[in-house]
């Protein structure tokens, strides 16, 4: 259970690697440096600029939602036969981004990858904010969300109606709401000891009270830590199958239907890999500027960036395999509609987007084979942006090309988004960054108590205990 013990093996294996924490840090210096970002340091001017800009873009989202509720979903471009368009594209995109946070905090914890420690808090916050953006789309897609509750959640109502549990869309409701709840619990549990640190270090009375309430009276008792560590590991063990199930169920929204290009068994693993791929791209997009502007190079080292680059390369290859298998099964099925679907993707009206997607997701990430690229923050940052765009295009292609020309030629049509589709999508990006800026300002962005376990002094010397 003690996460300190494997540090030596790790050093032996990666003798040439950059360290997970720069040498010379002590319990005190780690605590002071991270808590000072919240408590001591003057809020940088860049924070105000970034927050204001994000908040303005989030304001655009609010205006779009207001107009949407007044006018109805007709303000969007989706219409028969493309009934699912930006809503589901953006929903899947955001949910996928969230998955890296859970992967870093849960799966890498179980695999004893101690380099995760300095990025897990941040990545978990990203998960929560991405899920918040994601749920907005299906909810508003219902048109009048306040009337949709009875077919989303099972509660006794005057109509005597229940949701349809045989539908993948309902599985999705349960998967995403469980995912959001468990991520929030996991995040909060991780924050409790750090809230106690902020409570004890805050000089301002208001902060002392607020952090004190959030810390729940945590005092670092050895008896408490034993239960805390057991809980943390169990939560990680629960979050691991959960995160895999969430994107599996998201892919069921497509795979359980019979639409050409969707009805494929490759979908669950391919969606999960794509989610992790997009998520790590977003973690890189956010941490590279963050470590630069907040001087966190000691804690988020090149080792972290390099490892994330490697994970992106691995998941990118799985995704590329998925694209190949889509084409292969379409051909091998000898089914007219499947064959037409893939040819339409490659040569039809949306072909430029398909090839852009292949370029962004399958070609560009091959640069990560090079060690020089993996060690260059600029290159990693640019690749991560390209992958984020690529993953969005992937969902666009899956959604739109399959729906716009399916079985019946007479019902073929083209889809294009309206200005409100774009303001809504860009608006959620604004909301995401607004929440992220608030998080950076008011909460410890790196898990302080877990960073202490990485300090060399943290190791208990058995021979001295017995002496």
């Amino acid at each position, binding site marked *: 259970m*003690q996460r300190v013990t494997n540090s030596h093996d790790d050093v032996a294996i990666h003798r040439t690697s950059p360290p997970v924490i720069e040498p010379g840090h002590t*319990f*005190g210096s780690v*605590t*002071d440096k991270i808590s000072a970002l919240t408590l001591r340091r003057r809020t940088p001017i860049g924070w105000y600029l970034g927050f204001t800009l994000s908040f303005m873009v989030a304001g655009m989202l609010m205006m779009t939602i207001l107009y949407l509720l007044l006018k109805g979903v007709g303000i969007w471009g989706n219409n028969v036969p493309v009934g699912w368009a930006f809503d589901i594209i953006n929903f899947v995109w955001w949910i996928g981004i969230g998955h890296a946070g859970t992967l870093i905090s849960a799966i890498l914890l179980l695999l004893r990858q101690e380099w995760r420690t300095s990025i897990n808090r941040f990545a978990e916050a990203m998960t929560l904010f991405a899920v918040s953006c994601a749920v907005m789309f299906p909810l508003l897609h219902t048109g009048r969300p306040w009337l949709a509750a009875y077919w989303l959640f*099972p509660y006794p109502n005057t109509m005597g109606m*229940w949701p*349809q*549990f*045989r539908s*993948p869309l*309902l*599985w999705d409701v*349960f*998967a995403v709401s*469980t995912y959001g*709840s*468990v991520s929030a*619990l996991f995040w*909060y*549990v991780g924050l409790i*000891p750090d809230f*106690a*640190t902020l*409570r*004890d*270090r805050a000089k301002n009375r208001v902060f002392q009270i607020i952090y004190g309430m959030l810390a*729940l*009276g*945590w*005092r*670092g*008792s*050895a*008896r408490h*830590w*034993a*239960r*805390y*560590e*057991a*809980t943390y590991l*169990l*939560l990680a063990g*629960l*979050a691991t*199958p*959960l995160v895999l*199930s969430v994107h599996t*169920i998201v892919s069921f929204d497509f795979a359980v239907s019979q639409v050409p290009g969707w009805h494929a068994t490759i979908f669950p693993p391919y969606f999960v890999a794509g989610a992790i791929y997009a998520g790590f791209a977003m973690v890189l997009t956010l941490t590279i500027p963050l470590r630069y502007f907040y001087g966190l190079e000691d804690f988020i080292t090149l080792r972290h960036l390099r490892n994330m680059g490697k994970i992106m390369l691995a998941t990118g290859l799985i995704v590329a395999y998925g694209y190949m298998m889509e084409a292969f099964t379409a051909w091998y099925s000898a089914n007219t509609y499947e064959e037409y679907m893939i040819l339409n993707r490659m040569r039809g009206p949306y072909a430029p987007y398909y090839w852009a997607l292949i370029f962004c997701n399958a070609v560009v990430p091959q640069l990560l084979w090079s060690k020089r690229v993996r060690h260059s923050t600029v290159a990693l940052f640019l690749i991560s942006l390209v992958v984020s765009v690529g993953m969005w295009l992937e969902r666009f292609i899956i959604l739109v090309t399959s729906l716009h020309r399916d079985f019946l030629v007479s019902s073929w049509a083209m889809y294009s988004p309206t200005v409100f589709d774009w303001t809504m999508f860009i608006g959620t990006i604004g909301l995401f960054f607004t929440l992220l800026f608030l998080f950076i300002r008011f909460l410890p962005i790196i898990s302080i*108590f*877990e960073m*202490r*376990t990485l300090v060399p*002094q*943290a190791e*208990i*010397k058995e021979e001295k*205990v017995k*002496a």
Partner: protein
Amino acid sequence: MKKSIRPATYGLMAEFDDPTAVVAAAEKVYEAGYRRIDAFSPYPIEALSEAVGVHSTKMPLIVLIGGILGGLGGYLMQYYVHVIDYPLNVGGKPFHSWPSFIPVTFELTILGAAVAAVFGMLALNGLPEPYHPVFNAPNFALASRDRFFLLIESLDPKFDHDETANFLKSLGPREVTDVEH
């Protein structure tokens, strides 16, 4: 039986700089026969929890029960909805079409287990607890930074103020102090 009188102090607190020292001291205190003891550290130290006498927790059992209740509740809810209360023929599937009930059952299993884990941990730890006597110990604010503390409660049967204080001082702490209620 004599009516218990509230002791003058909550206990004695020894303060250490080094994790190895506090673990060694905690083991000696336990060996000396003290049982109402606790230690405080800025990060989890498994050896320290063991030294104060915690060898296993009830957390796995609580999480198991939470998971079973969540999963069972989830499945029975779907059974009730689709078989008993509102049977609806969808594509000729049987009312009790169990394969399509699995995803929601799975999600609710996880939800039940996770909720039980977090609230079970908080309940067993007695949190939230805004006031606790140990916060009165000098320098205790450093327990969330870089200091390690070892407490012997005055309610311990072996507790004798002067003797216990001398014993704690022999373990090499920075300081030994009384903890007010």
